[in-house]
């Protein structure tokens, strides 16, 4: 069967809208718009050259029509979770400008993303791999040890701030005026940062270079490796030695094309969400209704014969009960399954999205083929109904509805704790937190109950599961969002299929074919 699901009609779309791309995004509970005007030039029968009308940015050559296969759909799902959606223009609130970049640490997913970027934009693409870290990481533990090794076993004695930074800039002054509940003074922390900045950056850059070499990517003219270091405790480290690592992949050669890229992403997501043959503005056209197009997989056959159906040299057994297929992995519990499923655009998009946003440790999803997995929980967090709905529908294509969710909760980052306290006061109660650090189940039921309808309004896909609402959970950071989880016995069924969607055509033997620790 052809792996072509539809196409992106770049030329026709840009001509029809006269080059003016407009879109709206909802991320982190913010509604924002993006806009860009493009001009196109004919290159040959099959290709066009696209650039910004203003003349700024890069000129990019693209096919007039880009075929969509399941890997590309999964890539957009992955980008939907891990990719940059634009930064807000401070002079124009609510408007974002978009540069294409991607945050991911898992090496197999990085390799997948690089391959897909190269397929989508075959000409003149440059990659910059960046490792971001809080410099507090180097103040204790592993980071300190690495720095000590770099200095040959002894770290130089600490210099004063005036020695290492005679002229403070505005950001330095702001840093010094902030209050942090950590040992040491801001001045000591800032002088540590400037005294060791170059060394810390070198350590991080070397580390990142070693990591990408493992997946066959070597620094070159078109592949750069950098480190981005923040002042101590500014990036998220809570204590000396704490890490707040962020891995970014920035793309060069695509300046100015970010808005068009986002437009493709959201047109694709919208048409999958609404199961429409054509996306809202016609940029995407599927071969058929998305739910009906794709590769049909016979579940028993897949898990009995395919290399992706084998986990740690084990395969499940099957039986039929009341006309339904029931599978059992060793040491697990029986699970009712669909006889077959179609790897359609929704399933492919869900595979990529789950790889990005799912709470399952990414490394386990790749190492499970070679060694016995633990912690294969099925959990997903989002503040957008589109994402929740797509994952639930993908799960429901393999499992009965009553299996796809065990319970759901609402996670609320510290930014909204003041609101939680206010909600408590409105109900005559204080906000009592759970767990020693306060990150456990919120004890005050009135507050949890008050937010249930918020969760159902923001994510109406949860309505059939309303009775499974469990609690509010205060967390360190982030906006309020919905988190659901299913029985961990589902993981051995769904994750091999998700990995197959992304890598089935590239890695024939998953046991040994992935980079694992």
């Amino acid at each position, binding site marked *: 069967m052809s792996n072509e699901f539809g196409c992106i009609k770049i030329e026709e779309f840009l001509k029809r809208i006269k080059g003016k791309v407009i879109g709206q995004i909802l991320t982190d509970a913010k509604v924002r718009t993006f806009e860009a005007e493009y001009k196109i030039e004919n290159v040959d029968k099959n290709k066009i050259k696209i650039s910004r009308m203003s003349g700024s940015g890069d000129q990019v050559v693209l096919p007039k029509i880009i075929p969509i296969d399941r890997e590309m759909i999964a890539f957009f799902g992955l980008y939907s979770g891990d990719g940059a959606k634009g930064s807000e223009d401070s002079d124009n609130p609510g408007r974002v400008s978009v540069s294409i970049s991607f945050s991911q640490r898992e090496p197999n997913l990085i390799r997948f993303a690089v391959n897909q970027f190269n397929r989508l934009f075959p000409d003149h693409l440059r990659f910059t791999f960046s490792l971001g870290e809080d410099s507090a990481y180097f103040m204790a533990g592993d980071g300190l040890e690495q720095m000590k090794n770099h200095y040959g076993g002894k770290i130089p004695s600490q210099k004063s701030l005036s020695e290492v930074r005679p002229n403070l800039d505005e950001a330095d002054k702001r840093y010094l005026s902030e209050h942090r509940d950590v040992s040491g003074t801001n001045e000591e922390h800032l002088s540590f940062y400037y005294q060791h900045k170059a060394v810390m950056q070198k350590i991080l850059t070397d580390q990142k270079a070693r990591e990408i070499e493992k997946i066959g990517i070597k620094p070159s003219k078109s592949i750069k490796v950098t480190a981005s270091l923040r002042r101590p405790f500014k990036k998220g480290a809570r204590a000396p030695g704490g890490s707040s690592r962020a891995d970014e992949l920035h793309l060069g050669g695509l300046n100015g094309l970010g808005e068009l890229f986002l437009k493709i992403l959201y047109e694709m997501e919208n048409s999958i969400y609404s199961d429409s043959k054509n996306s809202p503005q016609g940029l995407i056209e599927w071969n058929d209704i998305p739910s009906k197009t794709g590769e049909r997989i016979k579940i028993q056959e897949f898990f009995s014969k395919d290399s992706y159906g084998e986990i740690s040299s084990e395969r499940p057994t099957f039986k039929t009960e009341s006309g339904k297929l029931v599978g059992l992995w060793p040491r697990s519990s029986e699970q009712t399954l669909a006889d077959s499923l179609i790897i359609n655009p929704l399933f492919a998009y869900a595979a990529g999205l789950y790889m990005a946003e799912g709470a399952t440790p990414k490394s386990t999803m790749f190492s499970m083929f070679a060694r016995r997995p633990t912690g294969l929980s099925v959990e997903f967090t989002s503040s957008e109904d589109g994402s929740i709905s797509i994952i639930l529908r993908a799960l429901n294509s393999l499992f009965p509805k009553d299996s796809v969710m065990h319970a759901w909760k609402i996670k609320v980052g510290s930014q909204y704790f003041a609101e939680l306290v206010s909600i408590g006061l409105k109900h005559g109660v204080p906000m009592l*937190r759970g767990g020693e650090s*306060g990150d456990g189940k919120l004890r005050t039921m009135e507050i949890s109950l008050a937010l249930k309808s918020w969760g159902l309004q923001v994510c109406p896909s949860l309505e059939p599961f309303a009775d499974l609402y469990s609690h509010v959970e205060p967390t360190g*950071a982030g906006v309020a969002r919905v988190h659901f989880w299913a029985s961990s016995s589902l993981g051995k069924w769904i994750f091999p299929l998700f990995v197959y969607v992304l890598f089935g055509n590239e890695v024939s033997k998953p046991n040994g074919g992935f980079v694992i620790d």
Partner: protein
Amino acid sequence: MVVLSLIEHAILPGISCTKINLCKEHKEWIKDWLDTLDTEIGNDIISSSNCVAGFLAECLVNGSPKTDWLGLMKDQLEEDGVPLSYSEEFGKRLYKFNHWKQVTVHAIYGRWWIETNLGNPNPQWAKIIDGLIQPNGWIYNPEVSPTNIRTRMQSELFMSFSMGCEILSDAKMIRDESKFVSPIISKPLTNYVSSEYFRCRALKTLGMKNQMVVGVEKILPKCKTAPGFADFSVADKIDDYMGVAKRSSRDLAIFSPVSTVQALRLAEDCGIDTSTIGHWLEETKSHLEKNPLEIPSLRMRDLDAAFGEGRTIYEIIAAAHLMEL
């Protein structure tokens, strides 16, 4: 049951409900709420906070309570002689929430408050509160919430302390007042109306208002909304760990009658000039007289969905009280 006047509840200072004349909108809203509560009670779905609110609401509507709230509390909100926050059936409103059985300071306070209003508080409650005083001097039950002091909510710490303080003071069980108040006067000024109000309330209960931390006059204008007050100022949202301002440009602090009655009491107790307090009150009254039910709900950034209800029974009672002042 005849209740001629109420002792005020810590959440809603200044309210002696039997004296309030309700506007039509508030009266209907409260009656509807009581009807809903009645159905829940019939199904044993009971919480301490609802019993307190039900007691207050019936006083507002009828001049005295009509339900045997104390009987309900004894039957559904007590285990081994200790008050609970929730009945077992209430606990089932959350899926598999196995933490429903909670002995909290506010549940003990609710029980003590209702019994005191009915004229016969059980001296046992003060002994239980005394047992909840932690080595650090704060009053809370670590079996319900084991969270360390650093990450507990300040409003919760001060509220529980203030409620515990009232019960202990009433029972004359505070022996060393200086030692007793040391945790609340050692904590720096917060940015929250409720925290400062409860701190001040505790000090006032002990006759030690002069020990109040300084700077309240700076907080109140920051928490001022149009009309009335919110509990917090959006501009002051600070990350506890990183010490930096949060990205809050799309968040709004909104008017809360409960926060407003607390803010006005705090202002009064901290010596804010009477003309300023009078102006704040008039502005709030004027708004409520035109729109008695316009009590907005919180929102998160650009999402339309209400982040918790705007109107609650406590908010409506506070609004009714503000209109009467």
